[in-house]
């Protein structure tokens, strides 16, 4: 089996690109802390409302943590609680969410906050809300007849 010289050049270049891509995202994920949302905490999906922190959905100031606020969401077909929230510009926020019924999406359009909500699991993502404006939260995983009506709103204000 022989390989043409040009094909070798091409494969070295191509594999080099792949290694470059992998290194870039790998360093960003594991060194700079930009891992995709992968929270391992579980919750009883039938007792979400009684379980902390989901008994009090909404934005809460916290002390002594790596982040300034916790923004707690409870999703169920076909709504998010809270339906609207104001976040101060520049706040470092831990978004914590779960679902009471089927699988939902949790996507803050135009940002990197994009995670799956699965019954029994808590999804978390920490980020700094550093651009003012109105952001739409949409459910981006099919959840039933009202899937396209399921939304919420975040206002990032000065």
């Amino acid at each position: 089996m022989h390989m043409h010289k040009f094909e070798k050049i091409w494969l070295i270049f191509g594999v080099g690109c792949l290694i470059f891509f992998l290194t870039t995202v790998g360093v960003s994920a594991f060194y700079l802390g930009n891992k995709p949302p992968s929270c391992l905490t579980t919750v009883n999906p039938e007792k979400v409302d009684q379980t902390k922190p989901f008994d009090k959905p909404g934005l809460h100031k916290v002390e002594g943590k790596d982040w300034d606020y916790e923004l707690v969401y409870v999703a169920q077909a076909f709504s998010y609680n809270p339906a609207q929230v104001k976040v101060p510009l520049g706040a470092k926020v831990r978004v914590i969410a779960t679902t009471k019924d089927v699988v939902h999406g949790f996507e803050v359009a135009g940002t990197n906050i994009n995670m799956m909500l699965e019954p029994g699991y808590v999804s978390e993502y920490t980020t700094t809300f550093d651009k003012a404006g109105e952001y739409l939260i949409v459910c981006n995983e099919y959840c039933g007849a009202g899937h396209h009506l399921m939304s919420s709103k975040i206002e990032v204000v000065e």
Partner: protein
Amino acid sequence: MAKAELKTKHKTEIEDSSSLKGTLASVFLLGFFIIITWVSVYYLFVERF
């Protein structure tokens, strides 16, 4: 191996690679396209919160 034979063999090898220069150019254009699109979306990722 006779010298003459060696020479012709060498020549065909050169032709062999030169005749695929369009292929090499094509795959590299493809490679640059992949890099440009990837870097663009990575920029979006870095830019957004």
